[in-house]
């Protein structure tokens, strides 16, 4: 009998019942909510006359709708936004669920705050009505996005009925060239295998590049698993994971910690474990990547030229590419690195952790944002913000002409408040370049924080390697 994959080990440990036909009832260790989708789950649960089974295992983050402007309050630029904030808070308080609220020094984006607090641990199951819950797989947890109705189910029962996914291993070999980050790798992967390439799979990211990667970079890698249509992604925990978690507020202490570390050592796929699909990516050849279109699969090296739809043999691809070019205001053959930008955004659950801000600040330091470019940094959490300020990163950004914001999801998406404007070309460290994602008509180019920083300085999409020492 073959060995087990990492996912099977976590899965088997959480199986409450086999529901037959490939579906299991899984125990859920942590239920996370935010004011955008969690509000509906809590409200609907109450309307059905049901209660939260284990309030201590649920947490609410205020991140999606709250303003990130200095001096913020429950009032927000998004029409109707205040009701989401206040109804979520009231429902959470009534249910006895802890809220990382506005004014709390721990507030921020759920996928940044929860790991940072030591609430997500290797081998745990974590769910949230938010598609980027996969981010937390970077710590070796099985963490996946659900809908609001499933959120109600998890709150009421501490379980979810889940169909066993197919297993894929993505092995990252070789080594990263200077200027190339986890974001560039995962965009390359999606570009090669399409935005539907991971459909039906849970993906284990493995190989020497993942082992060499910092924990926060692994979270970036896993964050984009949903953009690959995967059910979720994760990385096996290792000594770096243990070191990253040690001493965090909610992390186990004393003898519990010692027992946990011993148990986590087994959280890896056995050598003879079998995957349904294997993909390998030689990272040595990967360059800094920027998207040109309106799907994360429209990704290419920053040195590349926008494709000609006519050259694609698939009529569906041709049509999708034509639409994307029209929306993005581009022509076949345009050089990505020649495109002038209007704005640059560093933030989101993909790339707003301290390491991201350090990387961007290293590029920005001693330079200035190009004339006419609006540049914004939004730390992922108030703790990231405080840590960045303690080492002077805020001054680096402010001196260069960036805005320095309070923590939150901010302009990763447009909810009716702030946006970049129609026709504006934005380079952004976020995860989605969908039509209208950052505002009606806004043209979003996804890239790493380093590439965003370099482009803000250059005033056009830039190859970060040109600005590195």
């Amino acid at each position, binding site marked *: 009998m073959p060995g087990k994959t990492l996912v099977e080990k976590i899965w088997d440990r959480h199986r*409450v*019942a086999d529901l037959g*036909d490939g579906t299991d*009832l899984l*125990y859920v260790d*942590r239920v996370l909510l935010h004011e*955008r*989708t969690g*509000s*509906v789950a809590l409200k*609907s649960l109450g309307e*059905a006359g049901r209660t939260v089974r284990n309030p*201590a*295992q649920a947490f609410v983050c205020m991140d999606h709708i709250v303003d990130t402007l200095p001096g913020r309050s429950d009032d927000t630029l*998004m*029409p*109707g936004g205040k*009701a*989401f904030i206040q*109804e*979520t808070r009231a429902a959470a308080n009534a249910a006895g669920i802890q809220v990382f609220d506005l004014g709390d020094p721990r507030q921020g984006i759920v996928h940044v705050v929860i790991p940072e607090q030591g609430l997500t*641990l290797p*081998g*745990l199951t974590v769910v949230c009505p938010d*598609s980027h819950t996969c981010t937390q797989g970077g710590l070796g947890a099985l963490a996946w*996005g659900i*809908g609001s*109705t*499933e959120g*109600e*189910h998890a709150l*009421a*029962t*501490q*379980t979810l009925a889940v*169909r066993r996914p197919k297993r894929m291993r993505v092995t990252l070999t070789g080594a990263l060239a200077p200027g190339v980050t986890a974001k560039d790798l995962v965009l390359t992967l999606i570009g090669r295998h399409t*935005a*539907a390439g991971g*459909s*039906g799979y849970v993906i284990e990211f493995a190989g020497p590049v993942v082992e060499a990667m910092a924990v926060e970079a692994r979270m970036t890698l896993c964050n984009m698993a*949903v953009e690959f*249509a995967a*059910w979720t992604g994760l990385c096996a925990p290792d000594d770096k994971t243990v070191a990253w978690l040690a001493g965090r507020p*909610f992390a*186990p202490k004393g003898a*519990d*910690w010692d027992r*946990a570390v011993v*148990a986590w050592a087994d959280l890896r796929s056995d050598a003879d474990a079998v995957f349904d699909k294997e993909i390998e990516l030689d990272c040595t050849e990967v360059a800094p990547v920027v998207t040109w279109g309106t799907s994360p*699969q429209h990704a290419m090296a920053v040195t590349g030229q926008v494709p000609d739809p006519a050259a694609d043999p698939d009529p*569906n691809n041709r049509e999708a590419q034509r*639409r994307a070019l029209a929306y993005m205001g581009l022509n076949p053959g345009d050089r990505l690195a020649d495109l002038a930008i209007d704005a640059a955004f560093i933030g989101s659950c993909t790339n707003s952790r301290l390491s991201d801000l350090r990387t961007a600040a290293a590029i920005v330091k001693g330079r200035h944002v190009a004339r006419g470019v609006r540049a914004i940094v939004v730390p992922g959490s108030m703790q990231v913000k405080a840590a960045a300020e303690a080492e002077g990163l805020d001054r680096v950004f402010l001196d260069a002409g960036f805005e320095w914001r309070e923590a939150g999801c901010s302009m990763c*998406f*447009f*909810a*009716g408040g702030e946006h970049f404007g129609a026709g504006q070309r934005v380079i952004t460290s976020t995860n*989605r370049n*969908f*039509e*209208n994602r950052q505002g009606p008509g806004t043209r979003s180019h996804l890239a790493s924080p380093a590439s965003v920083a370099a482009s803000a300085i250059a005033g056009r999409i830039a190859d970060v390697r040109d600005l590195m020492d």
Partner: protein
Amino acid sequence: MEPFVTLTGVAAPLQRQNIDTDAIIPSREMKTVGKTGLSGGLFANWRYADVAARTENPDFILNRAPFRQATILLAGSNFGCGSSREHAVWALKEWGVRCIVAPSFGAIFHGNCVRNGILPVTLPADAVAALATAAGQATSDDPAPARLTVDLRQGLLTGPHLGSDPGTYPFTLSPADRDMLLEGLDAIGLTLKRLPAIQSFEADYRAATPWALPVPTL
């Protein structure tokens, strides 16, 4: 939940790949905490020439006869990718959609459909494309090319005859999803029947992994 057994209706061709939930309902259209009042925001950026004034875009398929009455969508691959927002499904349902046929779906969206009585049918890309091409020929005088029948009990979709094609397409759904749709089951109620098993599991789990539970209060 309203059961889904069979459906006969007009299918609207929406042959774009990777139609994301932001496109199905933009974030700014989710104006109140709740599951209703969302259909006006359905496909808002495509459906309206002027979103604020709600001026219709006559070129958008759902604004044209006979597709205004569509209860089925014929979509491209990876339909419903992106954000987990269940509002996308609530908006579709409120507008009148009961079934979506596509080569593949976003995973969270697929689950959200089943939990709200919308049937997601996965068919090969060439089959969906053929049905969409046929549906595109439909007019208000002759909606027949767009008329489909979906029978969940038999797992069979029946469309117009396409050349030598018999016009029937078998499909499968996981038995759990199928039962939930056919019987309009309340998933939480079903699981709560297993509460003793959950409690028993939890007691063992807490004993074996004391670092995971209970969560400290801070």
